[in-house]
């Protein structure tokens, strides 16, 4: 326990306390909340946001941003479902889905890093382009999964030993891998350095452009994995999938202490941010409170979290 506490550094500990409070409040308000079934349910649902949030945090840490991930979610599920429907091969579909994700990451990164257009604008444009392309291809109808492979179904819906959702396991493994990469590899530390102080990183001889490009690719790649889980859960490539997804991710990550200014924050924090928002939305749902309140709650949380971050930084100046 002591080790865990040390691991969650001061800021993260505060978040963890918030999480516990939310958890306890909901446990008392709804008898269904604190049941194994519900908790497992939440862990499966949140893995979609969690995995994308990991990639998004890596990119923010490197000092860039990608708000096209929501549209990307809808976009890459098309090659996934279509390939499966046509070839009957799940692995081929998954590979193609990930390849498309990587390609989009490369395009975003190329325009932002090599052509010098602000990544916010590039990915804002990409948000339009991908969504338009999705509407165009699908004719604004969902493309159903006709293969009905058990394997594919289990990715998003299956449970290990009947209790732990596979999606949650995938999310946890990816989280642990990237926590390790960001903390303990020179690659991860270089991403922090580039986002934290680009000039110092340049003087240390880093290839800043390549590092940033790789972060764009990681972000798109992990979002594509989220897309696979989502497609498995809803059993189709849906043209409206991922609507407002980017904003949910921003809210969670910023809440988790990852700074929009780059170079600051941890994946542990981001994960706790996702956890808090997921638990709030689950709890509100169980209490039959309008799901639209989630948006309001997210918006208020962003302002408070970022405003607090700014105040803290101004004071330390």
């Amino acid at each position, binding site marked *: 326990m002591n080790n865990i506490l040390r691991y969650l550094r001061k800021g993260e500990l505060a978040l963890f306390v918030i999480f516990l409070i939310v958890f306890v409040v909901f446990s008392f308000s709804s008898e269904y909340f604190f049941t194994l079934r519900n908790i497992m349910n939440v862990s499966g649902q949140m893995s979609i946001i969690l995995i994308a949030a990991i990639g998004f945090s890596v990119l923010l840490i490197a000092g860039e941003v990608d708000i096209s991930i929501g549209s990307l979610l809808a976009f890459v599920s098309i090659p996934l479902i279509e390939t499966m429907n046509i070839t009957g091969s799940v692995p081929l579909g998954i590979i193609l889905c990930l390849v498309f994700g990587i390609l989009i990451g490369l395009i975003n990164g190329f325009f932002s890093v090599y052509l010098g257009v602000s990544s916010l604008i590039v990915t804002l444009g990409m948000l339009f382009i991908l969504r338009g392309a999705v509407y165009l291809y699908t004719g604004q109808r969902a493309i159903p999964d006709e293969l009905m492979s058990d394997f594919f179904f289990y990715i998003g819906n299956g449970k290990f030993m009947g209790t732990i959702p596979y999606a949650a396991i995938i999310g946890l493994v990816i989280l642990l891998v990237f926590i390790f990469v960001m903390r303990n590899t020179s690659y991860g530390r270089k991403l922090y350095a580039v986002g934290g102080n680009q000039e110092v990183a340049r003087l240390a001889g880093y290839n800043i452009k390549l590092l940033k490009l790789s972060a764009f690719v990681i972000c798109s790649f992990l979002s594509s994995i989220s897309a696979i889980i989502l497609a498995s859960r809803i059993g189709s490539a849906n043209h409206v999938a991922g609507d407002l997804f980017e904003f949910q991710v921003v809210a969670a990550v910023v809440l988790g202490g990852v700074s*929009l200014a780059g170079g600051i924050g941890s994946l542990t924090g981001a994960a706790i941010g996702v956890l808090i928002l997921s638990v709030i939305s689950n709890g509100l749902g169980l209490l039959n409170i309008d799901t639209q309140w989630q948006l309001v709650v997210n918006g208020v949380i962003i302002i408070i979290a970022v405003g607090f971050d700014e*105040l803290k930084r101004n004071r330390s100046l």
Partner: protein
Amino acid sequence: MKFLQSNESILFFILALLCIFLSFYNPQFYSIQNIHSILRSSSTVMIVAFGMTILLTSGEVDLSVGALMSFVTVIVMDVINISGSIALGLIAVFGFCLLIGLINGLVRTVLNVNSLIATLAMMLILQGSVYVYSMAAIYNTHLIPLFSFIGQGFFLNIPMPVVIMLIILPFFVVLLNFTRYGRYFSAIGSNPDAAKLSGINNNRYKVIGFVITSLLVGVSGVILASLMDTGQQGSAKGFELIVIAAVLLGGTSFMGGRGTIIGTILGILILKIIDNGIILMRIPQEFQLIVPGVILILAVYFDGIRRKNSD
């Protein structure tokens, strides 16, 4: 003539080419109905874009305009339905918009939150709370003819939205080009320290920029509600991105310091005529999303190159 700067003449040239091309392709392009429809849908964008031009000139941005506009359609319809008074509907709308603009501006200046994040959060809050306000679309049950006239009527054979836009337009052309406030906005966007050291109260003008933009969203929202004859939660979704893309295309800089209302108008006309062309040429309508996306990236890319050259 200093009025049309070189950038604006390029846009004007592109616009003319588009018109000529489309009229050859499909003579329907020049039908009164088609022109009315282009102008009518352009006007709602333009009205909001006037405010966005000011904001971008002063180095800020407002992503909440689309969500606010949807909210406005709901409020105006609901309040008029209940009260039977257009005046009360308008008071409610502009009171609400004033409040939202103030909050945006104060979060930006007092809490010092980057306006991109601040207004993104506001967008989420508005998008959620409009459903909290009313889950269903609100239909016109008051049937007041004057209200329908706002969006659907004609004055001297000109669609009313265009008339409203034309009434507002000169005010902003004058504001940005001929008054000290216009100079202040560009000084603040170009070099905030120099502006402050010239005795300008930067924060005050930034708040004013956000408030003006929100109020203009109120105007456009009322027109939209009248046009649709409903108040609908998602009616202006993605509107913010179209407005921003058009303003940037018009030559206003994303980095602040340079803004032009005429350029903004030309930018919107180009986007809207491309939209119209997509329909006339029977190209799938989904390209109406893709084209502004591409144009946005290219416009900012060329803006960057232009800046590099002028430095």
